[in-house]
């Protein structure tokens, strides 16, 4: 199997399964699950083969023409390069494990087929996005990912609050997608090509005016911020927790939120060329990171804590990218996907055991669910920044890059990193340590179908970090175009802070044993759970949206409806006129003709008396007439 030749199958396999399920196979839940898992396994193998080829410097492109606009041909294409192969391998691998987990997790759900259809579309779209060779394909896949996240968050749409959460995710990301669409159109307009490599070449060679380039970069980042839930679009992510846990695991690690980071990484040369855009990226990232970390610290629900932690981790990725290190951002993306997916799978197992994810119901679960606790502990340690392997903790390159870029940024990122350690230790402590109470006392270890995938994923964390380390000197690192930022002082500082954070987190749990943290900080807690007034902002935006929609509706009613109505009236008038002509002229003519013939027949009928004498008389008269004519003819002659 050659990855260079077959890589395009990786996104197409899940998409094909989606089509199969959508046309009717979704009815058979077990078959649907089996097909989806098989397709994902195929995608994973192909992606790994592609990664092996890409690591050797190989490159491939497949495309088909879509349409020609104003002499410009737009292509739909897929491309295999180092970055796409790396991220695709991650997406399909995490996808495969999550699919396997979902087989058990959703076993009792009546709509398993629909779930796997949407999940297949989700990963297929994400793989398409990753492999996209041109901006059009990228945008289509981008929108599909958004749509799928809406469908999957709203999967249990009959539960209270779920439709609202799904709509929130949809609207907020869609708002940001408008900016991405604008930037895509501007780029195609400015360079005359949708091909990403050509666009990047044009932007680095200074063929686009610097002001325009900055606008394009900022618009593209707005789109990425929406997808990755960065300030000010972060509000949808915590609410997205209402979806099934496998969806959260996928959405928070490799598919949805990773798309924003991937977009910035994919267009990285453009951002580098576009002046101060990378600083915007970095500062937005660090702001989100601090906000998410603080919110995670005061959250009282396990899954929502993990959601806020995703905010903070994605923020740190943007810090890495914004500080000028592509590799730092991408490495954190890879590592985060692995440990965040594991955390969610473990949280799902806890959810199944306790039938709820509020911290108040938990405690002391380490004794009841030891294997889940191990998986959670391993991934939480990786999240906190502890060296769970011989390799470095993944946040170090980001911090080192920030150190090299800007001191204020470095300090903020360090603080965010410390918050990460604090809340991961707190979450672990609240769930697994201490004494059991309530439903936690009857909890049992998760069933094998839920346990094996999370342990496999947890095992990937050290392996993945090892792979990261091993790849540093490899062609892949060179392909991504740089050396890893490495400052020993920063590494030491980060490690010390992580240890201190974990210790503080565990200690805080001891001092205030239940889930309430720092009562003194109650106002701050409220501030963070209220998302710093962003809810008001969202409400204003939503109102604005409704207002615009209402205005458009009025416009539609007044102008278009009137137009259509008059058009219909005109047509009706013509039709009625035609009908009148038909009735009064054509029908009448036929009727009169028939009546005339009938009347004539009635008259003629009177001639037929039926009396033989009359007929004979007529014969004689006729005979006399003939004779008279003959006689006359003789005389005339």
């Amino acid at each position: 199997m050659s990855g260079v030749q077959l890589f395009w199958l990786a996104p197409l396999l899940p998409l094909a399964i989606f089509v199969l399920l959508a046309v009717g196979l979704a009815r058979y839940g077990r078959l649907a699950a089996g097909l989806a898992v098989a397709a994902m396994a195929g995608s994973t193998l192909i992606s790994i083969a592609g990664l092996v080829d890409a690591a050797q410097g190989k490159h491939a492109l497949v495309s088909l023409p879509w349409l020609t606009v104003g002499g410009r041909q737009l292509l739909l294409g897929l491309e295999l390069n180092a970055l796409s192969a790396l991220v695709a391998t991650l997406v399909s691998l995490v996808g495969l494990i999550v699919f396997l987990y979902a087989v058990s997790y959703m076993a009792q759900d009546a709509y398993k087929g629909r779930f796997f259809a949407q999940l297949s579309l989700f990963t297929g779209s994400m793989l398409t996005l990753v492999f996209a060779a041109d901006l059009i394909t990228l945008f289509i896949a981008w929108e599909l990912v958004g749509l799928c996240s809406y469908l999957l968050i709203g999967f249990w749409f009959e539960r209270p609050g779920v439709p609202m959460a799904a709509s929130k995710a949809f609207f907020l990301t869609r708002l940001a997608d408008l900016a991405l669409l604008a930037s895509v159109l501007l780029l195609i307009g400015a360079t005359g090509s949708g091909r990403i490599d050509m666009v990047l070449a044009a932007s680095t060679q200074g063929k686009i005016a610097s002001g325009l380039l900055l606008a394009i970069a900022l618009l593209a980042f707005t789109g990425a911020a929406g997808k990755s839930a960065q300030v000010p679009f972060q509000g949808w992510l915590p609410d997205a927790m209402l979806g099934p846990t496998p969806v959260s695991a996928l959405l928070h690690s490799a598919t949805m939120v990773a798309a924003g980071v991937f977009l910035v990484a994919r267009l990285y040369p453009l951002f580098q060329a576009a002046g101060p855009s990378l600083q915007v990226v970095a500062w937005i990232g660090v702001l989100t990171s601090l906000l998410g970390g603080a919110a995670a610290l005061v959250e009282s629900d396990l899954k929502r804590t993990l959601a806020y932690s995703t905010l903070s981790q994605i923020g740190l990725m943007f810090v890495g990218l914004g500080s000028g290190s592509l590799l730092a951002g991408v490495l954190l993306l890879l590592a985060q996907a692995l440990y965040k997916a594991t955390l969610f799978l473990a949280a799902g197992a806890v959810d199944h055991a306790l039938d709820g994810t509020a911290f108040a119901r938990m405690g002391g679960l380490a004794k009841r669910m030891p294997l889940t606790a191990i998986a959670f502990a391993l991934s939480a340690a990786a999240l906190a920044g502890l060296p769970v392997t011989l390799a470095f903790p993944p946040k170090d390159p980001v911090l080192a890059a920030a150190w090299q870029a800007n001191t204020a940024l470095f300090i903020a990122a360090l603080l965010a990193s410390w918050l990460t350690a604090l809340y991961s230790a707190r979450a672990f402590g609240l769930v697994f340590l201490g004494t059991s109470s309530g439903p936690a006392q009857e909890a049992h270890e998760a069933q094998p179908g839920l346990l094996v995938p999370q342990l496999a994923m947890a095992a990937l964390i050290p392996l993945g970090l090892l792979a990261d380390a091993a790849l540093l000197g490899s062609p892949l690192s060179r392909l991504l175009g740089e050396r890893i930022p490495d400052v020993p002082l920063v590494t030491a500082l980060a490690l010390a802070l992580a240890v201190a954070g974990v210790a503080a987190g565990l200690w805080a749990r001891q001092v205030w044993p239940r889930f309430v943290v720092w009562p003194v900080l109650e106002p701050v807690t409220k501030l963070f759970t209220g998302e710093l007034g962003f809810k008001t902002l969202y409400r204003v935006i939503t109102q604005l949206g409704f207002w615009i929609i209402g205005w458009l509706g009025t416009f539609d009613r007044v102008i278009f409806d009137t137009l259509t109505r008059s058009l219909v009236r005109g047509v009706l008038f013509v039709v009625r006129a035609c009908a009148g002509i038909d009735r009064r002229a054509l029908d009448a003519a036929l009727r009169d003709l028939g009546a005339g013939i009938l009347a004539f027949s009635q008259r003629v009928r009177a001639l037929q008396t039926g009396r033989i004498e009359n007929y004979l008389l007529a014969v004689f008269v006729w005979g006399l007439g003939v004779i008279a004519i003959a006689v006359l003819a003789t005389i005339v002659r």
Partner: protein
Amino acid sequence: MNGPGLVAYLIVGALLFGIGVVGVLSQRSALMVLMSIEIMLNAAILTLVAFWRFVGPGNFDAQVFVIIIVTIAAVEMAAGLGLFLLVFRQRGNASIDALKDLKR
């Protein structure tokens, strides 16, 4: 060649024919109509014989014609009588006026 001439025979023939015509048109009884037809045929025979006697005594075509007419008259009488006998049996009378079924 004494006695009445051709014109006299023709006048008698025309009179006979006229009587026949009036009989056919005016008589109600089917028998009388048949008789009147017979009179008209005889008028024609008389005319033919008169023409043979006075115009071409050597040519016997007219005599052949007369014999054929006599035969036809006999046949016609037989058929007509049979027909009207059936009509009488069916309807109880043989009045020509009653035979108006074709009008329906």
